[in-house]
């Protein structure tokens, strides 16, 4: 090892150049791989977060200026004719002294539980009555039930039955349950794929008297005909004069995935070509260096270094350079692509969007680096094996 480092230190410029080459190509690879991963990520992560198949979930985007009564009729029709359950969720904020100031909330409809159930650590989930409050009369005598994130509860010592008061809307809440640590929700619409951590969030039931939201989700019974269902929903919307767009989440994800892949395909080909070029470049650099090191190697062989030792030394050098380059590239890549968890757009939570350097990407990077080194290493081996010390002695330096 000391030998390797000593030898490395003699060839600073050469190895710095090789290292830069490695770092540059690895960082490049990391960035592209993260982009591709984020395309995959939605397709992996969204189904993982849902309790039902994405082929049972229809995303309905409604015009905000809809008549509330028209929309209610539309929903009622869906429920009676298609046997689908419509619900929504949205992000909000409350300001409460008991929770240390502004806290992000997720307001959820009662039907949403069919799409994704929240697991409770302590206390209980909402019951039907919890959704049937009227915002106007929810005062201290009629507090609204809420669920609270585990980290938030721990930090402020909140327990089941504690009251929380929202200063902004003069509204009282009572803690009905504490979420399991690691509970997640969607930071945006389901098909966006940003998953938020609920550790520092509060879950509020969405009251019946609420206004119309933009995004709704229709949870369908298992195995429905996708095209037919969309057609029927469109007809029902027309019948009730509701302007909306409806699409299965599975379709939305598929489109996103192929778009994202298409977008990154050229880059990926580019990366592969570049990796090959770098690999060839590295190999030829090594070869040139081997020629300039004939003298050194010849002397070492003459004083009794075994072939094994020489090869070990050369490989050791490559290995150290590759490892250092890899570490620097990983650190650079991580710095460039931010943390694994990014602060949520709302509240104090964080979310993960897949655009980061995962362990998988690091492993792939390591494999690619190894592939890049292989031609160089093989060349080194072959050249050393062929090297005859008699070529090097008695002759001129």
């Amino acid at each position, binding site marked *: 090892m000391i030998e390797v480092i000593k030898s490395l230190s003699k060839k600073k410029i050469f190895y710095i150049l090789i290292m830069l080459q490695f770092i540059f190509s690895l960082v490049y690879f990391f960035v592209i791989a993260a982009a591709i991963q984020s395309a995959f990520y939605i397709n992996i992560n969204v189904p993982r977060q849902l309790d039902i198949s994405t082929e049972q979930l229809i995303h309905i985007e409604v015009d905000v200026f809809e008549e509330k009564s028209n929309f209610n009729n539309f929903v009622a029709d869906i429920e009676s004719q298609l046997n689908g359950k419509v619900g929504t969720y949205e992000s909000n904020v409350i300001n409460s002294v008991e929770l240390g100031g502004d806290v992000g909330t997720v307001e959820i409809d009662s039907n949403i539980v069919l799409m994704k159930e929240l697991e409770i650590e302590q206390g209980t989930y909402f019951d039907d009555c919890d959704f049937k409050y009227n915002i106007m009369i929810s005062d201290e005598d009629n507090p609204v039930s809420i669920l609270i994130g585990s980290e938030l509860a721990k930090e402020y010592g909140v327990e089941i039955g504690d009251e929380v008061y929202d200063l902004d809307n003069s509204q009282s809440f009572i803690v009905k349950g504490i979420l399991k640590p690691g509970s997640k929700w969607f930071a945006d619409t389901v098909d966006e794929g940003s998953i938020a951590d609920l550790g520092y969030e509060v879950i509020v039931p969405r009251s019946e008297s609420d206004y119309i939201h933009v995004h709704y989700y229709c949870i369908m019974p298992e195995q429905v005909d996708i095209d037919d269902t969309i057609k029927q929903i469109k007809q029902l919307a027309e019948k009730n004069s509701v302007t909306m767009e409806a699409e299965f989440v599975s379709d939305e994800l598929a489109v996103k995935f192929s778009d994202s892949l298409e977008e990154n395909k050229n880059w990926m080909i580019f990366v592969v070509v570049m990796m090959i070029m770098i690999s060839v470049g590295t190999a030829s650099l090594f070869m040139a260096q081997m020629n300039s090191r004939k003298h050194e190697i010849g002397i070492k062989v*003459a004083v*009794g270094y075994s072939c094994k030792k020489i090869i070990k030394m050369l490989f050791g050098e490559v290995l150290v350079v590759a490892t250092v380059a890899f570490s620097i590239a990983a650190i650079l890549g991580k710095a460039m692509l931010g943390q694994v968890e990014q602060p949520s757009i709302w509240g104090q939570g964080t979310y993960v969007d897949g655009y980061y350097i995962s362990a998988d990407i690091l492993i792939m990077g390591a494999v690619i680096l190894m592939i890049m080194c292989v031609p160089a290493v093989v060349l080194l081996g072959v050249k050393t094996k062929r090297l005859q010390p008699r070529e090097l002695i008695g002759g001129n330096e």
Partner: protein
Amino acid sequence: MAIIELRNVGKTYGKGECETEALKNVNIKIDEGDFWSIMGPSGSGKSTLLNILGCMDKPSEGEYLFNGKSIEKYSVDELSYVRNTHISFVFQHFALLNDYSVFDNIILPLNCKKMTSSDKKNKAEYYMKQLGIESLGKKKPSQISGGQQQRVAIARALITEPDVILADEPTGALDQKTGEELMKLLKEINIQGKTIIVVTHDEKIANVASKRIYIEDGICHI
């Protein structure tokens, strides 16, 4: 028993039209404590012979015995081991590593042995002192004179405490006076018990040795 024995050794380079017979039917016995010189015109096969004597190369024909054992079946790495423990080389152009300090050059052969760095240091200091180069340890070979460089090379050759020292025109790159001093030094080393074989063009230098091989067109005359 001879330390090195060559029996009917021949060496041929290349194949077909490019074939060169560098050595023909060489029979030599070198005893422990001998001081040999090898002389001959350019291209006669002196270096070839020395490389074979030093296990740097295997003969194409005949038999090579080191301490009575044939090296024919030795692997490359086993030959490296023989070189590292029993044989040392001194070259015309010193063959020092210019990126390494004098000290690191001298301990180079010890890197193949299991030895603590303080042991290496002690040994290096001992031989540097013996050769009068103790003050040069931190310098680079390019910063010292030719005579000093050759002393560094000899220190490197001695540090493994070899049985045989082979020198290929060790004075070739030195001026007359320095060359003679160097030969005196080799003679002293020989008197201390080491077997020495020197290739040279110089009659005067060859005279320092006690035995002589004259080689012409690959044929040895003893």
